[in-house]
């Protein structure tokens, strides 16, 4: 395996390496404008859950009816599993994230002995209206001030412009890397791509950019992959467990529409201004919990075609409600053979799902 890919895969979704003296700020959700953290010289670390560890503490504070990924993140925060964090930005990308924020805010108030880091809500909203843009800009001004406090210095316009350019460059590289798995035969699996994207959310932007550039240079050495070309929709995946389980069954995930995959990097900011940044985050998507059924179906249809997908799979984690409402329209929009895997356990497929996949792909063992 070429060196850059090996390094990126080794980083995975775990906590970042030691990054020198820069304070680490954890963040939840793709709606957090990491540009401010980079501009302030802070190290952003996107938080993921861990399906293999129990999330008892998270269940206790959040209830068992909420997305288990969020319950796992809260548990890991309480266990100090991410290493020392100097701050925490939580976006409102879905209901579970918002409730995670409320729980953290209240735990800091009533149980200060838990020593949770200071937490700030990033309330990016997504209706396509000017009123919403104005609101998001007001919220970004707050984030900028909070980040400045954490960094001990104000975030100036020049530093912000540089950070916007740096993150746009990273996004452009991710889009080029993603095209490697669209090739026939593919040069990256879906599992690898998801892991590469995750690694870039745990690395400083400069380091991530350098590794992706190296990966593209070494692309010719990458092995080739075959399989039923699947477009994956539904819940976001904060770990590669489900991708690996699907690809073990002979599928090849050539694209997805969640914000730990293609939706993270497709939309650039463009102009180096705070106004452009606000619009970038407001209009990024369409994600399942925040977009209309119509916008989501149109996007899925288009994206599945662009990927040359042969089938559509919707994986909906238990207590992640939005994807199941989207599915009927997405199925119609893609016109592909498709399957809904509803109410799945966190980080795994249940037996019914395995059966449904066999029906979608009866000769899977043969092709593999």
């Amino acid at each position: 395996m070429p060196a850059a890919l090996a390094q990126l895969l080794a980083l995975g979704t775990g906590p970042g390496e030691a990054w020198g003296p820069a304070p680490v700020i954890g963040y939840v959700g793709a709606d957090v404008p990491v540009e401010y953290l980079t501009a302030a010289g802070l190290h952003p670390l996107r938080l993921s859950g861990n399906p293999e560890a129990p999330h008892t503490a998270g269940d206790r504070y959040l209830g068992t009816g909420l997305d288990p990924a969020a319950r796992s993140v809260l548990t890991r925060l309480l266990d100090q599993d991410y290493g020392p964090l100097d701050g925490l930005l939580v976006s409102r990308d879905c209901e579970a994230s918002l409730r995670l924020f409320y729980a953290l805010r209240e735990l800091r108030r009533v149980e200060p002995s838990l020593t949770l880091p200071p937490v700030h809500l990033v309330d990016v909203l997504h209706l396509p209206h000017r009123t919403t843009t104005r609101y998001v800009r007001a919220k970004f001004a707050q984030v900028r001030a909070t980040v400045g406090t954490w960094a001990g210095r104000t975030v100036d316009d020049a530093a912000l412009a540089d950070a916007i350019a740096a993150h746009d460059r990273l996004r452009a590289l991710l889009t080029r890397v993603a095209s490697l798995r669209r090739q026939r035969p593919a040069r990256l699996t879906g599992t690898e791509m998801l892991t590469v994207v995750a690694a870039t959310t745990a690395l400083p932007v400069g380091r991530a950019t350098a590794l992706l550039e190296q990966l593209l240079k070494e692309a010719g050495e990458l092995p080739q992959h075959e399989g039923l070309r699947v477009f994956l929709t539904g819940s976001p995946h904060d770990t590669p467990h489900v991708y690996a389980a699907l690809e073990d069954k002979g599928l090849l995930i050539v694209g997805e529409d969640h914000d730990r995959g293609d939706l993270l990097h497709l939309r650039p900011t463009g102009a180096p201004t705070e106004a452009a940044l606000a619009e970038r985050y407001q209009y990024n998507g369409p994600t399942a919990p925040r977009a209309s059924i119509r916008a989501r179906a149109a996007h899925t249809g288009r994206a599945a075609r662009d990927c040359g997908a042969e089938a559509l799979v919707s994986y909906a984690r238990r207590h992640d409600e939005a994807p199941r409402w989207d599915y009927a329209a997405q199925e119609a929009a893609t016109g592909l053979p498709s399957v809904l895997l509803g109410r799945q356990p966190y980080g795994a497929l249940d037996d019914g799902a395995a059966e449904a996949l066999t029906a979608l792909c009866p000769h899977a063992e043969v092709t593999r």
Partner: protein
Amino acid sequence: MNARLNSASAATAHQRQWFAGLRADLADGGDFALVNADAPQEIFRTMGIPYVVNQWWSSIVTAKRRAQDYLELLRARGLPDDSEQYSSIPLASAFDPDPASAPWGGLPRPTIVLAETTGDASRKIFDLWGDQPGVSFYPLESAAENDVPTRWWELMPRDWERAVGSDRLDLMTGELEGLIRFLEQTTGRVFSETRFAEVMELVNEQQEWNRRTRDLIARARPCPLPVNDSIPSVMIPQWHRGTTWARDAARAFHDEVAERVASGTAVRPDERLRLMWIGRGLWFDLDFYRRFEESHGAVFVWSMYLAIAADGYLRYGDDPLRALAARFAAFPDQLYTPPWSAEWYVKEARHHGVDGVVHLVSEDSRGSYFTTRALEAAGIPVLELHADNVDARAADGDGLTRTVGDWLGTLTLSDRAAGG
């Protein structure tokens, strides 16, 4: 004491009559809105656009035992039948091949649907409404705040700008201006500022009556009415708020309670334990609330319906549109988001001098942990009942009764002293 409160019967009768009139008015078409419970209905009231509250219709369908038929209609379209049912059941009426067989003669077909984009799935239900021919969906943003002042109930009536936050209010006011323009254009009706001011005033008057009623019940020993009578007496006028009927109904409810207090009427003259019920109503078994009166002298004196009417709606100010935005920009936070929810329940528990709290915790427990924690920290005993409020299948009724009965047995005098 078994005679039903007149105001509860009157409200129920009014609702039926009103609905029949609505159906007659819309027989030849006309504008009609279906709106979510926590959306700003006052705009429709002002413009004279009739509306029905989505969740109210859902409860009618459920009470008439048609919920499963409706859920089947969703399932047949590949839609979930086990997600947000309380909001999704009315959507199925759009797919009903036999709409005339529906309860109360059926829900007229809306031309406008209004909802906030709360949660992850509830807006999708309205997306589907918006795809129906002749129906427009107007979505409202739902924003959240980083820091909130804790004792919101003291600030809300007049100092709501501080309680809710200016960014949220700017956003919601902008959204409401957009809604008004949208309704002016699609219905050709007028939004009169004068009429709007009247509507806002009527709503405030109505909630002031509810506030007095709540305070009467809080102070009364023994409790003058069962909690299941207070629910229709408050909620039906709530859906009609902004009318003189609703204001007068709230006053009549107050007067009736005051009369009972004056004459010493009691649910149990030998009231020994005063209880608070936190959570949505146990719709599949409303008699549950009365099951412990005889055995333990235990009376439920509190449910959120009257209390939120008393504390959650009042908004005064020179700018009625911004005041209306303040009524809805943070509405669910009052009930479900700590610290607001947790501190408010503690305040209400003390105000009513309850000896214990039965806290209905569904699997999807919004802030429940923090509510229980806050009550216990205040020395008030809490029993968490883990059950769903609408899905009887998930709850073992006898088991719930036993659990509450056993717990009541443990509420000793010393507990009560600590809780008071």
